[in-house]
């Protein structure tokens, strides 16, 4: 039997490449097992479309009685919506595992992750593939397709590139925040992710122009847990509207910050991990 060889400390780039490759391998393995249940896949996708679609119907109804909110028309807000649904979809598709943390950590399954030679936080995030994310991406794409025709943006290759960067960054903002909020599982000893879910629900407020809220909510959504950077701010940057639309260009930086925050909270939590039984 060949002996396992300790790999010499690799360079940063090599480490990033290895982690990305292993992440893709884990997701791929779960994709295959998920696809075995075809009915599940369709039910999840359709549910996702319904869940997000309800919000759009609600929006339609509101704008049916008032022409605009704080200077934002229906199609402007539909843009924000499209952005949220798209980036949410990407985060669900590629990092749904964050939501399994409460279960894994508090029922002792976390032990196994700590015994494998791969970053525990990446193992958690890649432990599930959220096929309902595809439903989100499809709906978000369609909504975007319709709303771009109605908003006042000159679509050049530069704005398209900017938009792609913003959507990906927005998804990473959500992944970072999901990781940070779900890591509460290391402190809250229940197998349910109620805390993270309540934060997620709070983040839904940023589907509307956040200028309609008071200063407290605005600060919370843009500084404390910057959910607005997955919706309102990047939309502002694309539409070039609002008082400080340049803030949206910071989305990639905010994404990095959120990912670092998620990793830090997770690491702190890991030190508290008590396994189950003894």
């Amino acid at each position, binding site marked *: 039997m060949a002996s*396992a060889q300790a790999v010499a400390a690799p360079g940063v780039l090599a480490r990033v490449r290895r982690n990305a490759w292993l992440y893709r391998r884990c997701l791929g393995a779960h994709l295959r097992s998920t696809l075995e249940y075809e009915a599940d896949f369709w039910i999840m996708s359709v549910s996702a479309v319904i869940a997000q679609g309800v919000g759009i119907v609600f929006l339609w109804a509101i704008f049916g009685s008032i022409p605009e909110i704080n200077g934002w028309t229906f199609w402007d807000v539909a843009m924000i919506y499209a952005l949220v649904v798209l980036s949410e979809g990407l985060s669900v598709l590629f990092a749904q595992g964050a939501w399994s943390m409460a279960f894994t950590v508090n029922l002792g399954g976390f032990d196994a992750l700590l*015994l494998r*030679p791969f970053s525990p936080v990446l193992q958690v995030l890649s432990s599930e593939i959220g096929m309902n994310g595809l439903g989100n991406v499809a709906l978000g794409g369609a909504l975007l397709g319709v709303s771009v025709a109605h908003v006042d943006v000159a679509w050049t290759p530069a704005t398209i590139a900017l938009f792609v960067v913003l959507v990906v960054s927005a998804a990473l903002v959500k992944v970072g925040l999901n990781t940070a909020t779900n890591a509460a599982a290391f402190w809250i000893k229940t197998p349910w992710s109620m805390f993270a879910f309540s934060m997620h629900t709070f983040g839904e407020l940023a589907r509307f122009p956040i200028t309609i809220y008071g200063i407290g909510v605005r600060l919370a959504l843009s500084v404390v847990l910057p959910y607005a950077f997955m919706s309102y701010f990047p939309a502002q940057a694309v539409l070039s509207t609002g008082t400080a639309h340049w803030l949206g260009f910071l989305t990639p930086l905010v994404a990095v910050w959120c990912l670092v925050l998620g990793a830090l909270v997770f690491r702190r939590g890991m030190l508290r991990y008590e396994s189950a039984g003894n």
Partner: protein
Amino acid sequence: MRCVSLIEVAQLRKVFRRADKKPGLAGSVRHLVERRFVDKVAVDDIDLRVEAGEAVAYVGPNGAGKSTTVKMLTGVLVPTSGTVHVEGRVPHKDRIANARRVGVVFGQRTQLWWDLPVRDSLELLRDMHGLSDADYRRNLERLDATLGLAELLPVTARKLSLGQRMRADLAAALVHTPPIVFLDEPTIGLDIAVKDRVRAFVRELVAEGTTVMLTTHDLGDIEDICRRLVIIDQGRIVYDGDIGTVVETYARERTMHFSVAEAPASLAGIAARLPDAAVAEGPSDAQLDVTFDPAVVSSARVLAAVQAEADVVDLRIDEPAIEDVVRRVYAGELGAGGMQ
């Protein structure tokens, strides 16, 4: 620098904080307002050294702190105080390097991906450990030969029976041929056939020079595999030494079971000839048992004494078992710190 052991544990301690609640709903509600906690010391300042190639049995009653120790040795739990070094590394700090050198099986809980076929789990581990295809295939063939793995490969982990799961778990823990292996109750709940298979497999590992630390309740596992015995009770190590020595010191008594042609009217005659042994009636009329310490009374004297009083047809001797020692520790006869 002094000579360093493969595994070095010094003053290792783990304290869990548990909520101190009064029973019932009222107690729980009260706890919300008036939070009280109690410290539970699971592992209490233990010292341990294991050299390369050793096979160590780590035993003790439920809740003695066995699994907690193993979890600290493998980096799953962070010690409250004290130090752990495995090959000079601190497992919970240098987790990934440690995981490459160590294989761990927890009998109570699987480490396979629950929703994946066994084959996918093993292939993911292959990639995480960075094994070459050739190495992986060779190891898999080896594991298949002893564990009968082939039939399990296409099965999703959640659909495996307990015995199948344990075989797959062993394969997952050993696919990278680690030089150090921790087995925490690897035969729990298994039937005799699978148990034998697992034991044979572990014996083979030990023969190859793998360092093995085995935690178990099943004393059959120990006698088969390990030479060194460490007994833990209430978080403290109460014995650490050779298994044979323990048996000689603490399980010296053996029992001779006699079948006789005709039951003697009274056992008093035999008892009078053997004042240092215990003579008792056997399970039937024509049987009797003599329990004695060979260091005090020789087997020959026992046999002669019985033969003088009865017509011996057959006899059988029960050798002392490690079980007897551990049972005495469990029963509290050898208190913490009483030996060593």
